[in-house]
């Protein structure tokens, strides 16, 4: 096989993207778990993890730049490298969402949670599960899976909608809860964005495999539909 070295370098890129992805997945789950337990120390650690995610992203970006400059990739290889650049940027932003959740926990200080967290951890689990499968689809260049996963974003949007309504009820009943309700709303919003970015990863996977560059579905649909229905 010609270009055996390059082949193994391409595989290396995929492995690194998956590695970054798995750190991001764990960081998102841990950020919500720290919030749920009001564990400030754990949230401090999330901030550190986010810095590691950022560093790892730059490291992969550098590898990609070097491969593009030295190997002149074409066709599928070019699509893989260019898309990997995009995907690591999506992952880095997801890391920022986890950091955002950690910061909310830290800013809440010693104030108790407005309510026990039930749907927020569900959103996190669902989003992370989608992310995990999206990255598997990326690694296997599985177009079918990449087309199917974004549809599940509706479930995340539905949870977001439910959380939104619930928090609004708290605020209406007792306006002094505004700040604490708002914090949780930010958390839910960050998690909703995670699922949206999973869709972007799936779009890139389809592009790598087929060369077809298309948006799978507009983001926020279900949430805003839900808001409209709620009046």
């Amino acid at each position: 096989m010609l270009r055996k070295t390059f082949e193994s370098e391409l595989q290396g890129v995929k492995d690194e993207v998956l590695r970054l992805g798995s750190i991001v997945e764990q960081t998102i789950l841990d950020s919500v778990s720290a919030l749920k337990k009001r564990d400030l120390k754990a949230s401090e650690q999330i901030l550190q993890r986010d810095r590691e995610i950022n560093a790892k992203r730059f490291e992969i970006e550098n590898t990609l730049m070097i491969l593009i400059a030295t190997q002149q990739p074409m066709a599928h290889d070019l699509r893989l490298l260019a898309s990997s650049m995009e995907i690591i940027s999506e992952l880095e932003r997801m890391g920022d969402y986890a950091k955002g959740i950690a910061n909310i926990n830290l800013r809440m200080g010693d104030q108790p949670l407005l309510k026990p967290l039930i749907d927020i951890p569900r959103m996190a689990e669902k989003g992370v599960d989608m992310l995990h499968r999206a990255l598997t689809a990326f690694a296997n260049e599985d177009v079918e899976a990449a087309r199917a996963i974004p549809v599940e974003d509706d479930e995340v949007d539905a949870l977001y909608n439910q959380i939104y309504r619930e928090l609004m009820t708290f605020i209406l009943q007792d306006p002094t809860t505004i700040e604490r309700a708002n914090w949780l709303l930010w958390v839910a919003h960050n998690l909703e964005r995670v699922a949206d970015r999973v869709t972007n990863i799936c779009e890139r996977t389809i592009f790598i495999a087929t060369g077809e560059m298309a948006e799978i579905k507009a983001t926020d649909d279900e949430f805003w539909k839900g808001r409209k229905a709620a009046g």
Partner: protein
Amino acid sequence: MTQNGAPQPPLEHVIETKELGIFYGAFRAVTDVNVKIRRNKISAIIGPSGCGKTTLLRAFNRMNELLPGTRVEGKVLFDGQSLYEPSVDPVEVRYRIGMVFQRPNPFPKSIHENVAWGARIHGFQGNMEELVESCLRQAALWDEVKDKLTQSGLALSGGQQQRLCIARALAVQPEVILMDEPASALDPIATLKIEELMQDLKQRYTIVIVTHNMQQAARVSDYTAMMMLTEDDSSGTVIEFDETNVIFTRPRNKRTEDYVTGRYG
């Protein structure tokens, strides 16, 4: 010209082949090529060694028939007219469709004469000094040679010699310039100069370039023809012809994909 004498707009495709096959004696070198070369664009022909790239290129201006025993089947249309009709003068064809070769081959004459000679033979009646300057300018060589026009063309560097050959081709006012690996004997800087020059030239001419260097095809051309040997491995054909962007980012043909990603062979 139309019947009422009004000039027709130029055809969008300056060269078109129809089921073109090319033979060297009994050996079939090229099979069933159907391509349309768009006017004022650069079209590249890429493919592995021995797949018939140069043979195809040389069929565009009847250069192959300088070798005895060569024949073609099918058609090559130039501005809509069949190039291989008995009434067509091959010398006239080669004026209108010029060629630049792999190794610069200036005449052992002065720089000035290298450009002027072909035009003079062709019966050019205008101001020769202006023509020489214009062609050397178009070939991006004027500033480097304007003070030594009487010196031998062979005294120039390789890159300059190649640009002199381009100027020489321009002097007979062709419509199309065929380039057969025009930069393969040049260093990277001279290569980039030729590539830049091609971008200027395509405003006025149509360029078809054969290159072994895929990156060069990707850099300079608007359209790319991918040539490969046919399944029985005996003759070459164009397996995919499309916009260069498509060929190098999302080719349709698996063999093109394998070739451009370096997995061929």
